[in-house]
């Protein structure tokens, strides 16, 4: 199953898990399933059906915005990463 990597600031919403497994053939399907399991996480990364504009998603280190966005295909061994903007410094 594809693995979804959860960044440190969002781990409180996945019970502390740094990776979550989810089924699905596209990024949208995988994140949809993760969002059903963890609604608070969904709220942080989605605004309705769209990804929030300060959250980026990568498949194996590639930004999905120059692939097929949420329709980007994911395979069994692919890794989906959620990367929110980091504000501090």
């Amino acid at each position, binding site marked *: 199953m594809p693995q979804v990597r959860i960044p*440190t600031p969002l781990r409180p919403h996945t019970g502390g898990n740094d990776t979550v497994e989810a089924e699905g053939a596209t990024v949208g399907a995988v994140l949809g399933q993760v969002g059903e399991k963890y609604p608070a996480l969904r709220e942080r990364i989605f605004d309705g059906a769209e990804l929030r*504009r*300060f959250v*980026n998603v990568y498949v194996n280190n590639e930004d999905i915005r120059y692939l097929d966005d949420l329709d980007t295909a994911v395979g069994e061994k692919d890794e989906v990463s959620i990367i929110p*903007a*980091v*504000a*501090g*410094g």
Partner: protein
Amino acid sequence: MPFDPSDPLDRYSRQIRFPFFGETGQRKLLNSRVTICGCGALGTVLANHLARAGVGFLRIVDRDFIETHNLQRQILFDENDVAENLPKAEAAARKLRQINSTITIEPVVTDIDHTNILDLVADADLILDGTDNFETRYLINDAAVKLNKPWIFGGVIGSEGQTMTIRPGSTPCLRCLIEDSPPPGMTPTCETAGVLGPAVAIIASFEAVEAIKLLSGAFDALNKELIMVDIWDWTFRRLKVAGLLGKVDCPCCKHHKFEWLDGALGSHTTALCGRNAVQVATRRTEPLNFPEMAARLASLSDVRHNAYMLRFATEGHEFTVFPDGRAIIKGTNDIAKARTLYAQFVGN
């Protein structure tokens, strides 16, 4: 015995010996001008590296004074600076002149906003991000794209940081990467989630080495990705973002609409006369999520909210935040201080 170097390049001999840098690189560095925006945790590490490396002119811009809780990570400051109640830019300049008296350091104590940013960066070869908020970063991004100057973004929270080297026209810009800033209360800040000194030092050091490459002309060696580091779980990643250039319909670098620089986006802050309070107004379309903000601020005293406002107190200041992002901060008349407090506790 006074410090009296006979050879002005001797102090740089160990980096000159580095074959990819050399004396040519050093001479370029000595003729370079850099503006460091913000002199907190990122900014002090940046300024420290670049002053020691021999960047000929460093302008250090910061709006704040040094507080005790800065000393954990802001490496140019010490207890005496807190006792003297010095502005960060001035204290940094004093320390840096002791480290390297042969370069020019220009401290500027001001709040960077859309009215002054162009003046602060117009004569610089490179702009460095030592800020702690997206409002200033988008301003830097607008100014850098408008003036066609490189800049280096860095952000840190907790144990995690990100950095990216931005060269307008050659790489995606910050608005290509992050299309909109997180609304207030939506992301943790260093005040609410904490921050580790080594995490900031690593990101600032990445920024500094990129600065040295850029200023010495080693363009092929530059980072072309978004670097992400988490020092708690040993994550180091290079996320491929080069393909975003041209693919994202970027208002800034594609359409040259400079919404932050024009003042169309960003906060508008006014002192409320006679009330010892400042109003920070942000231009937001989405209402704030008060229950979420309250949970994030739970470590502070007496956080209360209803449908119309959220109120909390910290460090002698009382915050009243409204759903549109506007806030009234009681306990200060100082606009710069209020903007700092807003960035720290509400976010941007």
